[in-house]
């Protein structure tokens, strides 16, 4: 087992860990941030698997755009909640 195998195995362990914790975290914001980290680790794994096209795309899409969409969704949900509370009072 050489050094690159060790690196790959540690990346896979991190991937599994971040995937599980992104699913188990109660707080949605924390969960989104862990999901971003998961995407970045996944893009490194793809770069190691000799697929650089996928690595670039995943780094831009997974860590950039889907996370931005998730954050905006969270903010919008809070806005809706605040508005309905204002209407009630």
């Amino acid at each position: 087992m050489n050094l690159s195998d060790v690196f790959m195995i540690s990346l896979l362990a991190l991937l599994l860990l971040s995937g599980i914790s992104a699913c188990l975290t109660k707080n949605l914001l924390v969960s989104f941030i862990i999901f971003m980290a998961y995407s970045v680790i996944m893009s490194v794994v793809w770069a190691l698997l000799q697929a650089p096209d996928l690595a670039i795309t995943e780094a831009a899409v997974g860590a950039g755009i889907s996370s931005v969409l998730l954050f905006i969704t969270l903010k919008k949900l809070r806005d809706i909640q605040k508005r309905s509370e204002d209407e009630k009072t």
Partner: protein
Amino acid sequence: MLQTLWENRIQCVAVLIFAVGFSTLLLHRNLVKKIIGLNIMDTAAYLFLTSIGYIRGRLAPIIVGTDTDPSHYANPLPAGLVLTGIVVSVSVTALMLALTIRLYDQYHTLNLDEIYYMALREQEGGQ
């Protein structure tokens, strides 16, 4: 068998991540969490496909010079398939998030069970 599983450890991790995403999709009540679970499932399937395309000791399928011997490069086909899949999965995510916002606007909760009961009652009330 354990030997093969250890050799195919990337595929094993892909299966495990797929299971994590799938169980989140099935068991979590929160709609946004379900969407994250579906995304994780997506990336697990892509990881599996990409690891099929890897060949030990070969470089990415970008031709160097005039060397077009197929036995020097990795398989470009899974990468091409996954590349389209990633971009489709982000548009699916956006669509699901938009639907979630509309549901929250209507029912003021993210819990799928509550939404289901409310919709059921609403339907009966309308009859």
